[in-house]
């Protein structure tokens, strides 16, 4: 396998890791508005992700850095082409990132409320924008012979991409609710469970809608149906299983199911793109292939060595950090930082 293909997979893994991990952070952020009934509950909810959300966000930063290094043309086309959506995304990340830190540092009610809104908006916008981003990516964009993208509003925003965006919002919300039910006890835990059961049907409909529109609005199935059909079927089966785990309150399994569904959706985007990184709607000849977009072999080799030594170490201490904070939060006995 050429090194550029390995890096295509690695970047897929980084984005998928980001959606899996930061996905529940987004869901937890949304739950502060939908689930919490008082300030203590809010604080408990935020504290479930307190030790990890920052590191989860680094998956995105690493994915971006890896794109820059391994596929400079992809990085350049995407970030200049999606200029305005990225500005909004960055603003959302800014207010969200500081909100966690600032929230508990002020005294007035307005102060706390302001940052609560920042957490909420900062948690609902990014999954929506990511959904729009990935769906429009596989739908194809106006990319010219010089690899530059001149996209208009409807290239980003159309029925399919909006469905993609909403699907990400509800699925990460469900993922977050299940994370809360895993990390808390008592009243909050059972309420998170109940909310998850309520959201189940809605998220399921968006999942199906997303798949139907992927079939109708993109070439993904025409090109890669042989892989996508079994993969999407598996996602539906897993989502069906989730129903029983939810009913039996097997929270660990439920959380794994939403995680796997998110992983399958993310994988399907990269499978749909392969062997391209960008699909041109102007002329298939302008499609940007993995090979076109990639860095030189020497650079990829160095980066491969670094990645394969560092990623296991990073994974090891990441897992350890989850192990350190494995206990459920009760809210009445411990110190809540946020």
């Amino acid at each position, binding site marked *: 396998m050429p090194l550029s293909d390995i890096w295509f997979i690695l970047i897929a893994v980084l984005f998928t890791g980001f959606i899996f991990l930061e996905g529940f952070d987004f869901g937890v952020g949304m739950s502060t508005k939908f689930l919490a009934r008082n*300030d*203590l509950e809010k*604080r408990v909810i935020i*504290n479930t992700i307190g*030790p990890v959300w*920052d*590191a989860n*966000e680094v998956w995105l*930063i*690493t994915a*971006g*850095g*890896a*794109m*820059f*290094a*391994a596929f*400079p043309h992809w*990085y*350049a*086309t995407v*970030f*200049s*082409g999606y*200029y*305005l959506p*990225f*500005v909004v995304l*960055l*603003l959302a*990340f*800014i*207010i969200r*990132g*500081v909100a*966690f*830190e*600032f929230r508990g*540092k*002020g005294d007035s009610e307005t102060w706390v409320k302001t940052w609560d809104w920042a957490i909420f908006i900062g948690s609902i916008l990014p999954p929506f924008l990511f959904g729009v981003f990935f769906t429009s990516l596989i739908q194809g964009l106006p990319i010219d012979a010089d690899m530059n*993208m001149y996209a208009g509003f409807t290239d980003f925003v159309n029925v399919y991409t909006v469905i993609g965006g909403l699907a990400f919002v509800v699925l990460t919300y469900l993922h977050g609710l299940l994370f809360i039910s895993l990390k808390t006890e008592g009243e909050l835990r059972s309420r998170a469970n109940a909310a998850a059961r309520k959201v189940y049907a809605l998220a399921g409909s968006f999942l199906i809608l997303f798949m139907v529109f992927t079939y109708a609005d993109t070439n993904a199935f025409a090109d890669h149906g042989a892989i996508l059909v079994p993969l999407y079927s598996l996602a539906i089966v897993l989502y069906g299983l989730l129903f029983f785990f939810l009913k039996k309150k097997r929270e660990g399994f439920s959380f794994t199911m939403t995680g796997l569904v998110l992983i399958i959706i993310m994988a399907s985007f990269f499978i749909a793109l392969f062997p391209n990184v960008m699909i041109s709607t102007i002329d298939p000849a302008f499609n940007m292939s993995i090979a076109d977009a990639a*860095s*030189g072999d*020497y*650079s990829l080799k*160095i*980066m491969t060595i*670094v990645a394969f030594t*560092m*990623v296991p170490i*990073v994974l090891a*201490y990441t897992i350890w950090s989850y192990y*350190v*904070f494995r206990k459920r939060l009760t*809210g*009445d*006995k*411990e*110190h809540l*930082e946020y």
Partner: protein
Amino acid sequence: MEEVLLARIQFASTTLFHFIFVPLSIGLALIIAIMQTMYVVKKDEMYLKMTKFWSVFFLINFAIGVVTGIIQEFQFGMNWSAYSRFVGDIFGAPLAVEALLAFFLESTFIGIWIFGWNKLPKKLHLACIWLVSIGTIMSAFWILAANSFMQNPTGYVLQNGRAEMNDFIAVLTNEKLWVAFPHTVFGSFATGAFFVVGVSAWYLIKKRKVEFFKKSLAISLVVGMLSGLGIAFSGHSQAQYLMHEQPMKMAAAEGLWEDSGDPAAWTLFAKIDVENRETTGRIDIPYMLSYLTYSEFKGKVQGMNALEQQMIEKHGEGSYIPPVKTTFWSFRIMVVTGGTLLGLAALGLLLMYRKKITESVWFLRLLIAGIFLPFIGNSFGWIMSEMGRQPWVVNGLMKTADGISPNVSAGQILFSLISFSAIYTILGIIMVVLFVKFIQRGPEERPVKDVSATDPFETGGAGHAVK
């Protein structure tokens, strides 16, 4: 080319804003790690309180540093896509390694450190803050590796219309990196140190918590002194490096149009007339420029006119003079702040040694003002470094004007510039307000309580968690 100007303003403003927080984070992480080490070694609760008090500022600051850093990574692709295509192969690699090696380390262990006080054995918990500190320093190393390529390209070959990496070791052993890295890191340590110094001085003037802040002052003055020395020595090696690798930047920083005499004098102040290419009204220190350049008191230095002629022969017609006034004055402001820092730290340690520091109110007042010195020095250091490189974005390889995104309009850049500036202004105000609030509040009166051991049925038990 309105887009170039707007993209440059955006890059300058987001970078300078980001660089208010980064050095403070690097410096405070080190100082907090030292304080917590003292606590673990000496088992004196005072050091634990110090660790917790100063970490409040570190955490507020760190949060803003992280979020403003995300923009830094992505604006290369957003505003400078032609540049990104040209150098991604070699410039992107250090950025990716930075994320993998430094960002994961910092962000994971800072989470464990904040939330792990009662969950980890003391020494393991201490190791976490040291890993955060190491992470912040490594981050500086990799970002400077990327920047050093822009200043002095090494380890590449031009092919397929791009600069492709062919020698990673050459990228990492870039001489520019090894003069810039210590200079930046010492500057950062000084930033953290002088923040702690200044706040402690304020408390000593008010005679509140004298023991607590005398100890804080002692630790930070030592860090400040060592950093000041580090800044001076690394600054000297950086200047010498610039003289032979980026002579145009140094000539601009000297306002030197014609070649200098031998020995060359260092200009303290002067009036620069860019239009007529003249520098008049100089106040010179004889021999000094020769010494800065060659470490001896003889030797002449080339001026901008001769250097530009060489550039035209090599790269074709065009203007190769960077913004001279900005480079000249930035250099002087940086040098003066650095020197003042060193002086303040030395005098402070002397007064402390003679046990006179608490009475020297006038000097303590100076130390409060000293909080701002490193920030000024850091910012103007970067302005000199990046402005002095113009018109190049990658020295000798690509001009700044050729690096921008062809598909992004001036309106789009203006929109992002306005929204980022607005949110940065708000963040800046909030940070100042929070800093003032927590400085005034001071360290906790009561000994730090192990809240996890609180009985929820006692008064203040369950309620304690609710703010």
